[in-house]
């Protein structure tokens, strides 16, 4: 795929990723976020975070299956969008739910298991976002960079658990996220096991 086309697809992702945010702002401006706009903003930004986390995790399996290696070039942007919406999600909680009170945010976050899990997801995304630049990949070296970026699994799993934990009774939506994530992670596991098997088998023979 040509450099020019890659840039265009990146632009596509950039613009489309902003559409939900633009509509949130628009609806807020027109007072049409429903009866509980605070909750809606928190829920929707959280949902967007999960969607982008899942999309990020889908890149590698999709690339292996289709052989489209250029897909990898969009992973950073998807991951950064997950982090972006995750930050918005936290800001909505901090401002609308906790009234900008640092102390009440902290006490609530330490008291509630689902908030501990959610914060974990967001916090592990911070180093990933910081080290997402080409310069950082070079500086760290591919191996160490890849090891660090396995934290994305933690973020995605914790994110879905966080959603599951705070749902009152109808867990169908969090379970859909969990199922999709399980397939994506399961695929990686299969790939990993296939790669390691022959090496393990070879080790005793070499001795």
């Amino acid at each position, binding site marked *: 795929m040509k450099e020019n086309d890659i840039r265009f697809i990146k632009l596509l992702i950039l613009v489309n990723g902003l559409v939900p945010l633009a509509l949130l702002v628009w609806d807020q401006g027109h007072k*049409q976020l429903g009866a509980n706009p605070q909750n809606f903003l928190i829920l929707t930004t959280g949902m967007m975070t999960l969607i982008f986390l899942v999309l990020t995790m889908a890149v590698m399996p999709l690339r292996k299956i289709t052989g489209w290696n250029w897909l990898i070039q969009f992973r950073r942007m998807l991951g950064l969008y997950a982090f972006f919406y995750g930050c918005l999600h936290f800001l909505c909680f901090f401002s609308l739910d906790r009234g900008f009170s640092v102390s009440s945010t902290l006490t609530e976050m330490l008291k*509630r298991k*689902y908030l501990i899990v959610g914060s974990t997801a967001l916090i592990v995304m911070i180093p990933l976002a910081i080290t997402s630049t080409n310069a950082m990949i070079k500086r760290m070296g591919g191996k160490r960079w890849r090891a660090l970026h396995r934290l994305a699994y933690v973020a995605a799993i914790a994110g879905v658990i966080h959603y599951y934990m*705070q749902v009152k*009774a109808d867990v169908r939506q969090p379970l859909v996220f969990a199922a999709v994530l399980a397939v994506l992670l399961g695929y990686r596991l299969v790939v990993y096991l296939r790669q390691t098997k022959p090496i393990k088998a070879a080790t005793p023979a070499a001795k």
Partner: protein
Amino acid sequence: MKEPDKISDNEITPSAVYFNRRNFIRTGILAASAVATGVVYRKLNPVAKGEVKTAKLEGVISASAATNAATGFRVDEPETSFEDITHYNNFYEFSTDKEGVASAAQGFDTKGWQVSVEGLVNKPKVFNLDDLLKISPPEERIYRMRCVEGWSMVIPWAGFSLSKLLDVVEPTSAAKYVAFETLLNPKRMPGQRSDVLNWPYVEGLRMDEAMHPLAILASGIYGRSLPPQDGAPIRLVTPWKYGFKGIKSIVKIKLVADQPRTSWSEYAPNEYGFYANVNPQVDHPRWSQATEQRIGASGRRPTLMFNGYEEQVGHLYTGMDLRKNF
């Protein structure tokens, strides 16, 4: 000498035109994809609000100001809009999406509705709705409504005290509790096709709670008949308890000797108790109950003990450990 295969200049697409065409197509793709994303978002988050049309209730009476203040019949706080009360509902029989209940419940037919009042009573009776509503004229009661999820409303109900119905059927001395049941009909209540809860929805009150004047059978809001999403045609309202105690679309009321099972405490006994009294000091295991989000207002406000009805109902629970009996 002749140059071979010379393509005349005017046959070559000028690069400017070529790139323009390409840009034009790309701009089109970009715009189309953004619109498509927007449409998907809108499908998932609709803003359309249907009109809610219900009949005007005749003869709703309002108690005197003095009575209202003492009894808690009328709370002096801004009322939540009709729009919000009718478009933000927890009614899993129709949908687990609070904003989706209104449209899912539209057209719910309550013609020929009957309520059976039975069990440990001297005069059991199956009431036609009209006969039930004739027991006492509807009174306006402006109550706070605190949902266990941490949001609240102020709702102008129309209804009468449950005690008036109980007086008609004459509970025996063996009756210690009142058990309520919602209609079970998955055809008319599509939410009952999924097993989120164990249908039909059931609730219960202790006898003294049921006889308390604040506990009402409501048949209207804002001077109009209850819309389906709010529990048509008749529902329970107990303003000092979390909203889920207010069982909707009641078809059966049974006087019993033992504490009846209730839907939410059956679903998660560690999270929802039989009493479900509003209590800012006793948190839900997963979230705080100290504050609440008043619908239509910004920020959170402190939640009041017994939802602000401590003066009226506090004595019902003297000596009880409210942490254990949550």
